[in-house]
């Protein structure tokens, strides 16, 4: 997985590409969670993401929970059809802020 972070004032954007699986998830978690210390808006761009495993879902869930606890928001953009299916199947569509 490749991860690009751009910070602009109180808004941070993560662009993810490749597979967000058990190998990539800890790395993603290590940068996503601290991002809420500096930004009130953490945007995820999943345009180039091809796969999300349950470990990846766990990081997204942790991110969403962190956002909620800190009064921040974590909108998710450019969700492809494949990823959307996973989100639907696991019920994540209901709890994530997919825009």
């Amino acid at each position: 997985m490749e991860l690009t972070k751009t910070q602009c004032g109180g808004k941070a954007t993560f662009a993810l590409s490749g597979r967000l699986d058990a190998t990539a998830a800890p790395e993603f978690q290590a940068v996503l969670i601290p991002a809420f210390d500096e930004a009130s808006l953490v945007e995820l761009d999943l345009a180039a993401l091809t796969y999300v495993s349950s470990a990846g879902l766990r990081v997204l869930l942790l991110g969403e929970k962190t956002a909620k606890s800190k009064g921040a928001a974590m909108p998710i953009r450019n969700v492809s059809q494949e990823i959307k299916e996973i989100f639907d199947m696991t019920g994540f569509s209901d709890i994530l802020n997919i825009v």
Partner: protein
Amino acid sequence: MKKKRIERKILSVAVGISVVSLAAFCAVAFRGLYSVRAHVLQSSAKLGESAAANSGRVLEQEAVGRLLDRAQGHSRFINERLTGIAKDAVYFAGHVTEIYKSAGKLAPVYIPYASSENNGKLVMWMASANGAADYPRIRGEAGLLGNVKPAFVSNADDMEALTRSLYLATESGFIISYDRFSDDRNRIFDPRARRWYRESADICRAYGDSCGTGWTDPYNDASSEGKLLVTCSHPFKGADGSFKGMVGIDLFIEDLNTVVNVDSGKYGHAVVVNRKATVIASSDMKRRPDGVFEAKSAYVEGNAEYNSVIDRMTGGESGSARVGIDGKEMYMAYACIPVTGWSVALMRPVSEVMGPVTENSAAIESMTKRSLGAVNNAIMSVLIAFVVGFALVVAAVIYLARMLSAKISRPIVTLEGGLARIAGGELDTRIALKTGDEIEQLGDSVNAMARELKKYISNLQRVTADKERISAELGVATKIQESMLPRVFPPFPGRPEFDIYASMEPAKEVGGDFYDFFFVEDNTLAVIVADVSGKGVPAALFMVVAKTLIKNNAQCGWKCAGSPKEVFEKVNGILCDGNDTGMFVTAFMGYLDTGTGKFRYVNAGHTPPILITGGKCAAVKVKPGFVLAGLEDTRYTEGELTMRPGDGLFLYTDGITEAVNGQNALFGQTRLAEAVNVYNNLPLKEFTSAIKREIDKFAGGAEQADDITMLALRYTSTAPSDGKAA
């Protein structure tokens, strides 16, 4: 072996370098020597040639100069003698004229006629044209002229040396002579008939005073015994100044020959010629067979070169030339004899002159040979010195290189031995080298390496022990996990109305997937497939919690939790409480009424199972709720379907659909549905094995990324369950 190889390498490099440099040095030296040799050869040859040329020129100049000097000496000498004779002739002629002038005062002196009794004696005698018959006619004049006797006799000394005969001859036809030829036969003699007299007298008669001293060509006469002679003549006059006769002095050419012959041995051939190119004297003048010397022409027929020199001689010139005579090269020097206009020439063979040059050339050549021999010897001795030096140097190099290589290779061998012991496991081995160079450093490094190796190995042993312990513990955990899942099939031998088979294959030692089935009530069979996020020990621990919670809540029956929906909502609430790690579980649970085939189910974010009914596959649809342990107060929706006898349900985790091959392609639900269709008729155990084989085939050796869990349920009939339920 190794020691020898290093030694040999050092040795061959050292020997190679020294041999190559020596060879190069030798080549350069020999090149130099040979160029010196060539130079010696060349310069010797040049020296020989130029020395020969120079010395030849010098010798030639010297020889010709000397020859010319000698010829001029001869010419002066002969000229002096002849001048003396000519002066005598003039003197006697003057004396005779004086006698004529003193005719009245002088007493007559009567000279006897020639007589044989005086033959051979030096005496005065006379003769006349007609012998004694003339005497009365000439008596007066003869008596007067007899007064020359004292003068003639005073000349006796010369008569012994050069002059043969001294005489006077008169126009009146008598002769008074002083010599040794007094003979009866000579009484009758007319001088006027003689050529020497005639030629001069004709001039004197015709031109008076202008006639002078004359010299005849060589000739011989009756008394000369074949010897050639010449006559010097001078006219005398009477008291009245008229031509009266001539004084004559004969001399033998042989006397001149004696002069020129002196040199013939030393300077070769000598020759005297007169103006008519007649040979007057010559060192090789010979008598004819009749004993008479022949006056020959000096010219040699066909030898223009020589003849032109003769022409120059008769022309009164002095000089030198190089001519060929009878095929022999000669130097020739010639000088004029002024008094007679004669010329004397000396000839000397060139070979005789150039002899020393040839000798000189030979000497230089032999000297060159000697010096060349010396150079060759020098080259040979240098060669020998080189060979000996070469051998010595190579031997020294071999000896030194052996010592050096032994010095270098000994510590290496020590090092090698130490390394071999370390490699053999003797890590306490230490290499003690005190060479003070890189090899000692290497030894220290090896010692350090051995120390580090020992430390590392002990660390490794500890780590390995730890790992083995963990591995063993993980093995135990796997066993525990396995034992938590129902593994005995068929699990309910007394319940023929359904058939069930399940398997879980973890990606790591312990997995996060689990399945479960148990009876909630007599006719209600619960089947569960769940997947904990993540893998390994954390997932396994979470799985144990989740599984236990679900089973406990479900088995307390309708009293506690009631429907599957209520079980999940309750378990979710418990799991969420204190879930700091953010782990969650996707789970599918269904309750099968074994009597009616009615199947109520709930899905917490799990992959929907496949229903096989009437030989067709269909996803078991229900709106999936959120995962367990995700969010508190999550509400779940229940679905319901009815299984007919023969229908099947296939529950699985996303380890199947998300299995990847080498190209990162997913196995997917389509492939899974096809495989399910194909193998649907097999007994459940073989069915699950076939599905697994398909997955493995698809993955093609790619590592299993996630746990693979399958649960297959087949509903057979309603009949027995009714019986049992009753």
